[in-house]
């Protein structure tokens, strides 16, 4: 595992991703919502900052997640489709380095996004209240861990299917991951084969709600350090697992 080669691939991936139009659409929408929250907050009665924070945190989380999923979906798949992979694989790079390089590139892009929108949100909160709120960064930090995990999934899918299919699987993972409560309810209500399927889904797919502390941050409820540490650990461990799995499986893939 040579970090220089991983870095080279990561940089190329980053540069390639900057050319995806969907990226700018997502950033644009995210920024728009954050700024628009200023206007929307005027419509509410009571705590006006709450809606700015809710909308802002939601934008940051959602934009970061979608960038990770949609850009990640194309990271390997497009190289396969466009056959640029042939040149890459004829070079002295291991499959593991390719996976990590792609992952790093997409992650760098997604986290840059998250950071920019975070800055914008704090600026908006500053404008409104006269001071930036550092607690928001806790929620955003946990969203960033979610982004790491989603990037890993996106790259996994991208290594084995087309861009479109990877995108669909990625979005599916996101939706099911946030549907955790629903899955539990579902488990209680169905039987037999369907129950087994639901059980498998809950075990295999991550519970993305563990990275959601937005309500606590907005309402200034206590956030025990232990819980935060556990969530971060869970996210990073899971991501590591997915990456290793991807490398293991990618090693055995033949490309017609």
């Amino acid at each position, binding site marked *: 595992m040579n970090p220089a080669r991983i870095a080279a691939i990561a940089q190329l991936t980053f540069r390639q991703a900057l050319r995806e139009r969907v990226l700018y659409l997502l950033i644009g929408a995210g920024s728009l919502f954050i700024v628009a929250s200023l206007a*929307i907050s005027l*419509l*509410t*009665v*009571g*705590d006006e900052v*709450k*809606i700015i924070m*809710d*909308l802002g945190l*939601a934008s940051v*989380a*959602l934009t970061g997640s979608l960038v990770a999923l949609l850009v990640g979906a194309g990271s390997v798949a497009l190289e396969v489709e466009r056959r640029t992979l042939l040149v890459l694989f004829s070079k002295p790079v291991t499959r593991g380095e390719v996976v990590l390089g792609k992952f790093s590139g997409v992650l760098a892009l997604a986290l840059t996004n998250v950071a920019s929108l975070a800055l914008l949100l704090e600026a908006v909160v500053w404008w409104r209240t006269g001071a930036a709120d550092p607690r928001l960064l806790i929620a955003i930090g946990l969203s960033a861990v979610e982004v790491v995990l989603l990037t890993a999934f996106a790259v996994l899918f991208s290594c084995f299917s087309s861009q479109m299919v990877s995108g669909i699987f990625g979005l599916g993972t*996101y*939706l099911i991951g*946030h*549907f955790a*409560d*629903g899955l539990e*309810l579902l488990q209680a209500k169905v039987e037999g084969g369907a129950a087994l399927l639901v059980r498998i889904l809950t075990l295999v797919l991550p519970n*993305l*709600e563990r990275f*959601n502390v*937005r*309500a606590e941050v*907005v*309402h200034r*409820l206590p956030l025990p350090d232990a819980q935060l540490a556990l969530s971060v650990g869970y996210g990073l461990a899971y991501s590591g697992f997915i990456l290793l799995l991807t490398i293991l499986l990618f090693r055995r893939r033949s490309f017609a």
Partner: protein
Amino acid sequence: MSRRRSGRSVVLAAATVLLACLAFELGDRLRRRRQELAHSRLLYLPRAEALRLISFGFDSLLADLIYLWSIQYYSETDNPLRFEKIEHIFNVITDLDPHYLDVYSIGALIMTFDYHDPDLALKLLDRGIARNPQQWILPLDAGLYARMNRNDHALAARYFARAMTIPNAPKISPRLYAGSLEQAGDKRAALEMWRSIFHDADDDHVRAISRRRAEQLEVELELETLRAALSRYRADHGRLPGRLEALAPDYVAALPLDPQGQPYLYDPRSGEVSRAGGFQVARG
């Protein structure tokens, strides 16, 4: 050739203007009609559990948006049907975000003053209190509604008692409690409360108020004790005693003195007891 072209342009321009007018008129009609349709929209607001399942982690935001909408909705005073689902709507919002305090307060406000149903307001505030036990504003609000709109002072007292015990509750809370106890008729408890307020007071204003109230209650309680003793005396002896002193020690342990240390005045013919110095104290 140019005449035909200019003729066509005129027709085009006229058509454009016509369509613009049509669009404008239709838009206007739709706007007027919207108010009639608005309430039917609500029939389809799902329960909170259902909404939460599809909110994918953005419940708080969803609560904000529905709340925002509801504020606009409830300000449409020309729609008499808007209160049909008010309980459901506020339940949904507070289920999605149980810690959103403004919603309980504003919801209770609308329910009380627009819809004139303070019981519904209290129901909403009770939900809020259950989920936010450390927030004093909710029981305080509830106590005020109970007191001023429901005239249920015992209930108000319970709310104020609760508010009082929550850290950072405003200093007026114990006084509201004491006041409600009084109005509910529990003079002894009220007196104790006022005494305790007096004891804990850290400014003169509060001390003055609490002392006045305590004194007043003391007097009333003592007068009541005396009247009850007089009644028992008359029942036993068939007539009223000549002097108050006759009541001790059989009908009253000792003759109370008023807070100034003066004995109470007694008119043996009417059986009236009162306070010295011409301070007429109302009964009850």
